[in-house]
């Protein structure tokens, strides 16, 4: 096992509120700074558990970040870490999005947008970018400015959806994505977010002949392919994923249908 599998203490260097429930915590970590989009880290909050987290981009060289929504006990604790606080990180783990395309449609729900931000930094210089983003309310819209900044000189078109219709389309990111998909201007689709949303998107993309890739979430204990908690069909989301291609996902018995609880029992979505 490489050194990177041992939780290493990292001091949180800055904390930024993204929305009323979402914060970004930055820290120095050479390996995570170089993470590929779709890769994740296991993030330990001493005394409050360890969670898989997508590696968020930072504008400062040598830094990486996590963007976390406060929810249950561990995410709440991570959200509550202040500047100067210590977290333990191991990783990066998993595979990543294949960014080779000249026009990319990115479809993200909530903190599922995190790997898509890193993906923007990896898309080719001349690529055309479409971004469909879903959130619960207008307040919770995430990374809109950040996406534009990361796109730099590239064309980027953003469509927003909110569950309550308080901004943009009323619905999920898929509803926003449909507007962009129907333009026929995107050769590849990339998605991360709630699994039913991703399953719908993969279906919509396939119907239009657009190859899709989705970054999948599961319960992750080891992150390295030994515990089995993250299994989806005969795959391990932590090593075979988190990113899977639309063809496989379309044939999957589990994707969009069931995940495994901490005990390993199958649970329908």
């Amino acid at each position, binding site marked *: *096992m*490489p*050194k*990177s*599998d*041992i*939780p290493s*203490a990292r001091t949180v260097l800055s904390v930024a509120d993204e929305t009323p429930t979402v914060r970004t915590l930055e820290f120095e970590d050479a390996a995570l700074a170089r993470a590929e989009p779709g890769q994740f880290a*296991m993030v*330990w909050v*001493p*005394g409050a*558990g*360890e*969670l898989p987290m997508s590696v968020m981009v930072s504008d400062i060289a040598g830094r990486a970040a996590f963007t976390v929504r406060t929810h249950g006990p*561990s995410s709440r604790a991570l959200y509550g870490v202040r500047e100067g606080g*210590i977290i*333990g990180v*191991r990783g990066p783990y998993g595979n990543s999005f294949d960014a080779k395309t000249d026009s990319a449609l990115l479809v993200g729900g909530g903190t599922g947008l995190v790997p898509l931000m890193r993906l923007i930094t990896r898309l080719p210089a001349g690529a055309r970018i479409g971004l469909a983003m879903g959130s619960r309310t207008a307040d919770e819209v995430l990374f809109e400015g950040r996406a534009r900044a990361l796109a730099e000189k590239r064309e980027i078109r953003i469509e927003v959806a909110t569950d309550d219709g308080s901004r943009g389309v009323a619905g999920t990111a898929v509803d926003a994505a449909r507007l962009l998909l129907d333009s026929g201007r995107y050769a590849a689709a990339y998605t991360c977010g709630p699994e039913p949303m991703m399953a719908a998107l993969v279906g919509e993309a396939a119907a239009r002949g657009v190859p899709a890739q989705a970054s999948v979430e599961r319960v992750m*204990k*080891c*992150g*390295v*392919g*030994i*515990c*089995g*908690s993250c*299994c989806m*069909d*005969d795959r*391990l989301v932590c*090593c*075979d994923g988190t990113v899977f291609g639309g063809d496989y996902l379309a044939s999957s018995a589990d994707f969009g249908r069931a995940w*495994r*609880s*901490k*005990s*390993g*029992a*199958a649970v329908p979505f």
Partner: protein
Amino acid sequence: MAASLEARVGPLALPSPAMLASGILGISTRVFGRLLDAGAGAVVTKSLSVEAWEGYANPTVIGAPGGGWLNAVGLSNPGAAEFARMLRAEPAVPAIVSLVGSEPGDFARMVAEFGGCNVIAYELNLSCPHVARVGLEVGDDISLVESIVRATRAASGVPVMAKVGLGTANYLDTVGAAAAGGADAITAINTVRAMAIDAEAARPTLSNAFGGLSGAPIKPVALRCVYEIASRHDIPVIGCGGVSTWEDAVEFVLAGACAVQVGSALAGGNMGVFGEINAGILRYMERKGHKSVQEMVGLAKK
């Protein structure tokens, strides 16, 4: 006659001596299929209990500073009945079912759940070092071991293996009790009780504080246990602990193991390890003129 990889574990014949260890990728019957295709001689399931268990909170698995892994997953499993349902749906996947419990009745009851499943053997986990009232606490209770093995043996139509580890009793006494209870084979060893402390956080890293050490660091200890068991007891032994190369597998066989289990070496999605081990053992056998795995068992003790 060319060299054959077939391994015999007591009455059981396996296509290769390298099997999957319990608790490693052990909750998905679909993953089992992939591992068997990759060359695993058999797969052992996650240890199953009467009820479903969530296990401990994360961190449950972390790298150990001297190599290998520390884990305190806490025997999370969906329970024997639920697992049997999954297994029944995959009749083409033969499985060695690992069981964990506190008393003979637990084990007999669980065996009864597996009617209609393709179970080729049971492995009794008497050695998990980080969960109370089961595992090592049972293995350290010599008289309980014998009655548990006896009860499982009586309930089961297939071979029963007892998995031992290093606890507070002499593990060789545990082996003796398991043999007396009718065990068909011994698996040795489980992880070794251990812990990690994070200096910056000034606290144990695993949420359970104590966990089990696995992988390369424990190989010399596991090899010693296999050698000792094979020297003192006349029962087939399955070596487990730090096997990651064909050399490791051969060393365990030379020490007295009729087969080995591979756990931590799977880390990083390394399912190809089974194919590499199988190919390496075959090359070794051909080089050394051995025709069967069986004839190599215990050669280092001669």
